[in-house]
């Protein structure tokens, strides 16, 4: 890769960010309480805002600022590698879908994180330097007039959500890429339309910058701008739907090998659809007025981003563990992990939608009104489901660590995949990945279902010519 030192420093900067965040538990009166969105003026007024609003906010902002720098450095490497350092024969269209997803994500990260970083700097300055970028005049907290003047609370929201919406796509698009890659390998056929999938992921990336205001429908900004944000939000459902339909259409008629990775990939699709559908409702300002800051939103983003991306991570883990560590993970435990997690997460997050529709506001820690008190049994059910699902993850952790040391030794290409990572000379791969000779790519990435000397697939690096149905037509 082009900049190995920058790559290494990107990890260590991210690690420093993690330490700064965890440190906020141990300083002063604890971590910040303003939510991950850190809305002003609460986040900017200092310790008068509550426990953790002094040092806690500064540590949070330092941590996130460092995180942005780390991700920018990482994205730099990804983009440069994609554009400049592909091996011989690897044209852009011969990239597997996972690589396209990582490339698109790194382009998004470049733009989004570069906006969050100055926002964090402004927030830090409001705390330590007495500036007032985000705190308005005449603000009275606990009968004390705050010394700030003239800041704009909405400015923080704009800066944050300009980053915040692309961020959620940064979280999900790599999952889409991993899931596509895993599904194709287990379907033994390519996607219905490889290029349209790439175009759709690209469209998601581009549109994601135009929709960020849908987090701010009730913020007090001009209602006309709500219309301007609602329209692209509805438009962005189109590439999302295209992606889902391509997956479903490709799955139709496929003989799936249902290993754990494939199950989690299917679970991803399920979560993405279920979580995404609630997004349609939230995209409309008139409906969002009722549902904003309720558990409906919490259910939506947990399913579509939290659980779906987790399933993508699990799919990638089960799929690539043999290559990374040279051992297979336990299939039975993997399937058990999947089914229990799948049922468990639905049990946790589906009731959230009901709670939201019933008017249960989010970020409340107790319920004192009679209409919310009646919802406490639902919360209790969710809690039990959450504890159960959390316990199930121990199966995964056990599987991970046990297989790492005592798993069945893995062959070089256990899933009979076509892409380059399966063509390494040893498993785990040697230090220079491919040994002394560089791979040369002859084929498109997903030549499955063909008749070849290796079976029903031909690897990208194989010089063998194969006949496909297209030739016969």
């Amino acid at each position: 890769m082009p900049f190995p030192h920058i790559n290494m420093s990107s990890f260590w900067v991210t690690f420093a960010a993690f330490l700064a965040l965890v440190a906020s538990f141990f300083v002063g009166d604890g971590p910040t309480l303003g939510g991950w969105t850190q809305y002003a003026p609460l986040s900017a007024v200092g310790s008068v805002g509550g426990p953790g609003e002094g040092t806690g906010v500064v540590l949070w902002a330092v941590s996130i600022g460092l995180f942005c720098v780390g991700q920018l450095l990482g994205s730099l490497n990804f983009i440069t590698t994609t554009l400049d350092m592909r091996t011989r024969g690897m044209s852009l269209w011969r990239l597997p879908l996972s690589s396209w997803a990582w490339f698109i994500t790194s382009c998004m990260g470049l733009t989004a994180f570069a906006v969050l970083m100055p926002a964090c700097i402004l927030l830090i300055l409001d705390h330590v330097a007495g500036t007032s970028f985000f705190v308005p005049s005449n603000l009275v907290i606990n009968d004390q007039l705050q010394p700030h003047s003239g800041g704009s609370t909405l400015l923080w929201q704009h800066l944050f959500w300009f980053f915040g919406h692309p961020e959620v796509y940064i979280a999900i698009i790599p999952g889409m890429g991993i899931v596509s890659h895993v599904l194709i390998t287990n379907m033994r056929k390519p996607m219905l339309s490889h290029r349209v999938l790439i175009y759709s992921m690209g469209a998601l990336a581009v549109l994601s910058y135009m929709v960020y205001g849908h987090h701010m429908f009730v913020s007090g900004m001009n209602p006309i701008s709500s219309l301007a944000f609602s329209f692209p939000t509805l438009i962005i459902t189109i590439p999302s739907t295209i992606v889902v339909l391509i997956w479903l259409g490709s799955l139709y008629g496929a003989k799936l090998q249902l290993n754990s990775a494939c199950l989690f990939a299917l679970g991803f699709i399920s979560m993405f659809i279920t979580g995404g559908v609630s997004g349609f409702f939230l995209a409309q300002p008139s409906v969002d007025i009722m549902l904003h800051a309720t558990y409906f939103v919490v259910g939506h983003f947990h399913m579509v981003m939290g659980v779906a991306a987790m399933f993508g991570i699990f799919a990638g883990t089960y799929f690539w563990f043999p290559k990374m560590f040279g051992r297979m993970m336990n299939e039975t435990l993997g399937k058990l992990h999947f089914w229990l997690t799948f049922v468990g997460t639905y049990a946790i997050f589906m009731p959230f939608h009901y709670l939201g529709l019933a008017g249960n506001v989010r970020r409340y820690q107790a319920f004192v009104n009679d209409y919310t008190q009646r919802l406490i049994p639902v919360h209790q059910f969710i809690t039990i489901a959450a504890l159960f699902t959390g316990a199930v993850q121990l199966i995964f952790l056990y599987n991970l660590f046990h297989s790492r040391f005592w798993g069945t030794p893995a062959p070089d290409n256990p899933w009979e995949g076509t892409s380059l990572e399966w063509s390494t000379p040893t498993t785990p791969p040697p230090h220079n990945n491919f040994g002394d000779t560089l791979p040369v790519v002859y084929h498109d990435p997903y030549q499955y279902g063909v008749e070849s000397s290796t079976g029903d697939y031909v690897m990208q690096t194989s010089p063998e010519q194969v006949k496909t149905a297209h030739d016969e037509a």
Partner: protein
Amino acid sequence: MHDTPAHAHVAHHAPPTSFIRKYVFSLDHKVIGKQYYGLALVAVVFGMFLSWLMRLHLGWTNLAIPGLHLLSENGAPGNIMTPEFYLQLMTMHATLMVFFVLTTAPFAAFGNYFFRFRWAPKICPSPISTCLRSG
């Protein structure tokens, strides 16, 4: 007809030998990918633990969770969560999960490991001095 593959030899660097260079400050994208994965694993366990604390409080508001005062003396007097502490836990749960799990694991961890497998180091066709001449 296809070309015979060019068995171009890479001007490769010798693998590192010291523990620090191999496992800590490694330049190898595979190690960096695994480091990111490990970071995400720690973050997800911690974030999930925070979510359990939140959920226990939401279901049973005045529940005394044993050991909670160790996490915050002011936030959990008598092991019962104060409202502010709930918000603090919620903020940390979200920040850890969104940044250190959902951005790190699918993108940085798997990406760093497997992205590089699509690629090859830039072929330096001749000794390094010629590289200087032609850039």
